[in-house]
């Protein structure tokens, strides 16, 4: 116990800080729910496009697996790319939650948790690129 941040912040009772954190989490969770609905809607559009055209927009067994590949496929109106975009939105909802938590820890100047949250966010973002690196 050599570097307690502030004497007032060491009590066991929930501090104002923690209450603000909880309120923020509530807002984030609502946003997540909207994100999930949005992603389901995009996926549904992609499936309908596929059912109408009977074409995925890619050669046999092909579909995009990079973020840029998905985006350019969407621009070209390829059904599989639209479905993948919806799935990507879904994958990003937890990433968004962590990003917002990071912001709130920064505002609260909660140094340990800034580091903790930053690490988690970095792993999440890196995971989207690690597979491509041929690892």
């Amino acid at each position, binding site marked *: *116990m050599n570097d*307690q941040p502030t004497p007032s*912040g*060491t009590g*066991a*009772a*929930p501090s104002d800080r923690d209450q603000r*954190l*909880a309120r923020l*989490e*509530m807002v*984030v*969770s*609502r946003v*997540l*729910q909207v994100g*999930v609905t949005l*992603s*389901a809607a995009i*996926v*549904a559009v*992609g*499936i309908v496009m596929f059912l109408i055209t009977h074409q*995925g927009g890619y050669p046999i067994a092909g*579909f995009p*697996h*990079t973020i840029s590949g998905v985006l350019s496929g969407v621009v070209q109106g390829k059904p*599989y*790319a639209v*479905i*993948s975009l*919806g*799935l*990507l939105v*879904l*994958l*990003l*909802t*937890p*990433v968004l*939650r*962590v990003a917002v*938590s990071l912001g709130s820890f920064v505002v609260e100047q909660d140094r*340990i*948790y800034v580091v*903790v*949250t930053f*690490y*988690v966010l970095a*792993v*999440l*973002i*890196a*995971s*989207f*690129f*690690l*597979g*491509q690196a041929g*690892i």
Partner: protein
Amino acid sequence: MDLLLVSILAGIFGALLGLGGGILLIPILQLFFHIPLHTAMGASLISVIATSSGAAVAYVRDHISSIRVGMFLEIATTTGAVTGAFIAAHVSTMLLDIIFGLVLLFSSYSMLQRHSAELPENVQEHPWAKKLRLNGSYYDATLGRDVDYTVAGIPGGLGMMYVAGLLSGLLGIGSGTFKVLGMDIFMKLPFKVSSSTSNFMIGVTAAASAGFYFSKGWIDPRISGPVAIGVLIGALLGARLMVRLRSRTLRMVFIPVLVAAALEMLLTGLGVHGL
């Protein structure tokens, strides 16, 4: 179309049994739809994230889950998830089938055990707990009072979370069972806090696995798309049904099915066919 129906059913049962859809979906996709294992695992992760992000409001609103405990432990689960996904890319699917079968057996076994509502006693607070402000309190509706808790065994908890993350990445599941175990056994958290915080963490862990899966091309829009929609519809229906059905009775009916699926996966992994 079949895929959509099966996913709806998986979503309903997942919600009723308190499992992520993953552990149910993977055997179904592999054994009945003959979908390659990695693609089935990718679709399963999608279903895990869909149900967990969709239900996040409920977990946060109950004020039982601990945001700090969750975030702190996610260091270990996300690292484990990426490691597991990496391993999944390099070992044979037969080995993965065998591990999945064993994990499924273990999950069925842990469903059998009834959790007492009693709170942990004589918790030896770990020196880091205060510094990391992990100790907390929640209002327990059954006991009708506020419960303060302290956190023990942080290194052991972190280790167990790494394993939970590893299994998530390796098998494409949410691995909630193992998260709850870690918080229960090592950190001595009250059961309600463990299970609620675990639900809160599942989405982030699964996203770390899913990011890797996506970039590997294991998240196939033709499979994962219908599964995402189906599981979401199923989870909504399941939450409605939950009020009317006794989940304990349901579990007893369902455990033999899980055990059968586990054995089938084990046999597939061992190269025995024709059952």
